[in-house]
């Protein structure tokens, strides 16, 4: 579904991502793990169109999206939940979710939008309870749920999550990963970028280890989780 070939991205002279190739097959959870500054977020920003790549090719659903702006890529069904819970902090929870449907919002689609919103509320009942509240007043975990919920409203075929566990309490992290696993069971293809390697490898089918902008290791997640090198570097021995 997502096919990246020899992608390089850089800010100025520094290359943050060097010739990375990776694939996300339909229906799978693929994870990218790596330390802080390994280039994970830069890679995702290039995929979603927020930054321009230097070279390489990104195919999504067989279509070259390398040069499309972010707002067009969303329309094709690639939705990113950005790092640090990028919500509309001064708007209500309900408005945040509704804006996920911005691209196809019309009277004709009202039924579908209602259904998708109800689905999100069923998945995260706390959001329904706080629908009228200002999004900035939610807790970190709730904001992450809101960001995921809003992304689900964009009709995604591929959901890209950037560090969903960042800054959250362990119990909340557990909930979020449980949700991600459930989304995948319902058929969603997921690309998950994480520093929390243990949690990510547990729900992923396949994983890539990124080090200083390059793919250092790749393989089935079940294999990587027992790999001595991965264990030593990312799983705390």
């Amino acid at each position, binding site marked *: 579904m997502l096919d990246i070939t020899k992608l390089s991205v850089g800010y100025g002279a520094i290359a943050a991502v060097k010739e990375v190739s990776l694939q996300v097959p339909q229906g799978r959870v693929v994870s990218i793990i790596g330390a802080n500054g390994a280039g994970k977020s830069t890679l995702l920003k290039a995929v979603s169109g927020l930054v321009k790549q230097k070279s390489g090719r990104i195919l999504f659903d067989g279509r070259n999206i390398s040069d499309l702006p972010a707002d067009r890529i969303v329309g094709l069904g690639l939705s990113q939940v950005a790092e640090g819970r990028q919500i509309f902090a001064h*708007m209500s929870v309900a408005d945040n979710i509704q*804006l996920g449907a911005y691209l196809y919002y019309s009277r004709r689609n009202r039924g579908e939008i209602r259904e998708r919103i109800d689905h999100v509320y069923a998945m995260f009942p706390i959001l329904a309870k706080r629908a009228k509240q200002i999004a900035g007043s939610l807790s970190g975990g709730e904001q992450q749920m809101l960001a995921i919920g809003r992304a689900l409203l964009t009709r995604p075929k591929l959901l890209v999550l950037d560090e969903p566990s960042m800054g959250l309490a362990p119990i909340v992290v557990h909930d979020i990963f449980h949700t991600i696993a459930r989304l995948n069971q319902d058929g969603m293809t997921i690309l998950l970028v994480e520093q929390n390697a243990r949690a990510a490898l547990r729900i992923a089918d396949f994983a890539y280890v990124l080090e200083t902008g390059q793919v250092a290791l790749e393989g089935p997640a079940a294999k990587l989780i027992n790999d001595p090198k991965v264990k030593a570097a990312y799983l705390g021995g």
Partner: protein
Amino acid sequence: MRHPWFIRAAQRMNSISFATQVLQFIVTGLTVGAIYAMVAIGFNIIYNVTEIINLAQGEFVMLGGLVMVFMHVSVGLPLVPAFLSTIFLVMLVGIVMDRLGIRTIRKPSVMTLIIATVAVSIIIKGVAMLLWGKSPYDLPAFSGRTPIQLGGVVVQPQYLWVIGFLIVVAVGLTYFFNRTILGKAMRACADNPSAARLVGIDVEKMVLLSFALSAAIGAVAGMTMTPIALMDYDRGAMLAIKGFGAAILGGLGSFPGAILGGLLIGLIESLGAGLLLSGYKDAYALIILLAVLFVRPSGILGNLQVTKFKRF
């Protein structure tokens, strides 16, 4: 010899009762204030989406008045078509301004963009002077000039049009920004531009829309005020200062704040000029503005946390 103000006020009281006079100043002040409020709303729309203070906002008002004079008086279009075509033309100016004056700037920072709006305002003013010359123009009042007497207070019918349009603009915008998906998308751009892109909002389109909308509201202010105060090419800057003062006083970015700030500045100006010294008419409002900002830096209805959060 000139008597102190209180003696002159007392002398004036002989002819008309003081209370009636104060009421008259209030009515005039509210009308002028409604104009300032519309200018302030124009500032807020662009500020909310882009954080730019559009210092050409007063030029939209000036153009609204002069284009309306051209359409209605020179071309002879009836009121409603003249009104609508003026809005359309001034909106076009706003769109061209965004396309040529704002978007073409490389490596834009909020500050350079604000300077760019100053440049645009000078250009618009210059072109207006070439087209219309330096003399002021009058416009027939929308529904005649027979004053309405309320007690001893004289209300021009045009005053009611001005205040009426302020209400229409305020209600319309509140609905637009809180109830429609397009309005919410515009607010989302102001809130978090990169998150807006990630849900598929074309941020540049929203910026363009904010300029068009601001220009349209400026045009409405200009068209409704011209029958009361005439219009010439040079009026934009002072209107922008008063409107900006109103926006700051009420709290930059807040629509209820813009209305409150505008009406307050209009009232202070009118009462100050009428009861104290009329020569300082333009100073009263700005003195009050400074005083309020010393006490509440975010304006009356502004949110301090939001103010700190913004880059400018």
